[in-house]
């Protein structure tokens, strides 16, 4: 499967999984789908027959709320049956909303932000000590970079020369309630990582060629590498893109689901099958006139503290 095909499948599974479960974080699943597609299709070394193979590359999705994207990538890579994806969030399922290491192919459970980079650094350090050649990958959210422990880990990885550690920040510019810059700004994100001493590569994280090139050009120069992947939250579904509503809202039955599927079908790469709606949706529903769409759902749209200086903007 090509990275483009895998990324499309991640998006299609993501829509179905959140639709069926009422699960959150479709916006994050969509923004990170391309990076994960490239990683699992082309970059990561793994063995589905032996998920704990010693020479495998380690991978941690530290922004564990985009867990559906990893479950989709693992199932499509052959770690378990894709049918299981439909159990996401359900009673008795293995597929919790946030990433669980009880699923084959998952190295580390996440969900509380700010843990994954440290754990990956520990794995990278152990690999260095033991002379092992595999790489250690971790994906962070940009909102996650609010967590102080991320910066403890950033210092640590540089100090111990962990050039077998690759951190990708899914920089979709939005977090839970608002844009990152309206919450707790980490701009300029690349500059901050650079100032901590990391190799920094900044790319369009929804462009497969740029992702591919970034992963292929990681240098073993005694420093860890961070890839600032500039992405669009909700990428691929017009009404979700850059709307904070879709951090939590799931595609409901009706126009939300229909348009999501229809738009994905318009961008479907050759040679990929849609397991849920193979021929798309005939006569998709349209949003009603009063649909809450393309509106500003950010906190700052209505949050106007009086103590804050008029010249300043939150």
């Amino acid at each position, binding site marked *: 499967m090509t990275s483009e095909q895998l990324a499309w499948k991640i998006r299609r599974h993501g829509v179905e999984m959140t639709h069926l479960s009422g699960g959150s974080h479709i916006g994050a699943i969509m923004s990170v789908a391309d990076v994960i597609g490239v990683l699992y299709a082309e970059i990561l070394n793994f063995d589905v027959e032996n998920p704990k193979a010693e020479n495998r590359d380690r991978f941690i999705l530290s922004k564990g709320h985009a867990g559906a994207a990893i479950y989709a990538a693992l199932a499509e890579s052959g770690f378990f049956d894709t049918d299981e994806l439909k159990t996401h969030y359900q009673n008795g399922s293995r597929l919790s909303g946030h990433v669980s*290491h009880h699923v084959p192919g998952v*190295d*580390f*459970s*996440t*969900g*509380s932000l*700010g*843990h994954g980079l*440290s*754990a*990956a*650094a*520990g*794995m*990278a*350090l*152990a*690999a260095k*000590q*033991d002379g092992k050649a595999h790489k250690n990958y971790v994906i962070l959210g940009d909102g996650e970079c609010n967590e*102080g*422990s991320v910066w*403890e*880990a950033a*210092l*640590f990885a540089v*100090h*111990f020369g962990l050039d077998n550690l690759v951190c990708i920040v899914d920089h979709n510019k939005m977090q839970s309630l608002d844009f990152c810059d309206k919450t707790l700004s980490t701009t300029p994100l690349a500059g901050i990582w650079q100032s901590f001493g990391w190799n920094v590569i900044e790319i369009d994280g929804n462009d497969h060629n740029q992702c591919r090139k970034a992963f292929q050009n990681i240098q073993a120069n005694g420093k860890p590498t961070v890839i600032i992947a500039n992405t669009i939250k909700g990428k691929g579904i017009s009404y979700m893109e850059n709307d904070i509503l879709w951090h939590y809202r799931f595609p409901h039955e009706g126009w939300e689901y229909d348009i999501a599927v229809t738009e994905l079908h318009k961008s479907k790469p050759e040679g990929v099958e849609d397991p849920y709606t193979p021929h798309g949706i005939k006569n998709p529903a349209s949003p009603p006139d009063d649909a809450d769409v393309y509106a500003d759902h950010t906190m700052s749209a209505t949050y106007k503290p009086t103590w804050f200086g008029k010249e300043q903007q939150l």
Partner: protein
Amino acid sequence: MRDTFVRTLTELADKNPAVEVVTGDLGFGVLKPFWEAHPDQLINAGIAEQNLTSVAAGMALEGKTVFTYSIGNFPTLRCLEQIRNDCAYHDANVKIICVGGGFVYGSLGMSHHATEDIAVMRSLPNVTVLCPGDLVEAEAVTRAIVDYPGTCYVRLGRGGEKRIHESLPNYEIGKAIPVSKGEKIAIFSTGAIFEEIEEATEILKNSGINPTIYTFPTVKPLDTQVIKEIAATHEIIVTCEEHNLAGGFGSAVAEVLAELPCHARLLRIGMNDKYCTLVGDQKYLRHQYGMSGKKIAERILTEVK
């Protein structure tokens, strides 16, 4: 106690290259013998306990037996979620070492006192909680946890604790250790506070009381068998810990007793749901908060009157 720990671990690391110490920039003059003997088996992660603990989990998942090292409540409360999610939930082979249980860092103030650590650590599934009472227990615990799977928490005193046992050839995690056999009153003690029990026992003996005494170097898993036996054969069980009463060792014993149909009365000695606001050394603070030998004896004598 901390020197015993470091000496024992240095020796164990000779034979076991998987042993790794990660310190949070602490252990001046203490860890030196270890890093000189095993420079490839020690990392100073700086003053960053959250990162340190997750790093330890990551290393442990790669096959290392990782000892995180810090003082007071820094290796536990400062990084509690990292212990819960990254170490315990993953059954990671991380041994959390706290130097300075209770009032060891007395005069440094409340920020450096570990007085809720037992309660918090024992509430975490998959975490074994150990509080050695003397150098012999400290050595036995250190040897035992190297080969014990999963996440452990070890609460050490600082040093100068009196010797309780001659030796512990058959030490086992989860077992209480009998110190003396008496009648009517039994004293259960965990951690370095035992030295106060010795003093209390002298006073009690002068009043004609001859208590049964056990140390509990393991708080979790708790030796319920000993508790049940003593609950059936004694009138009063006294628990003693240099720790808050809420959720601590005495609470753990109470949980066992409460489920028995009839049992000895329980008297818990420890911090009475307070923070320490006084300034003084460990001995002074123990006395002020009712945990000195004299205060323990007085308390027991009041109960038996």
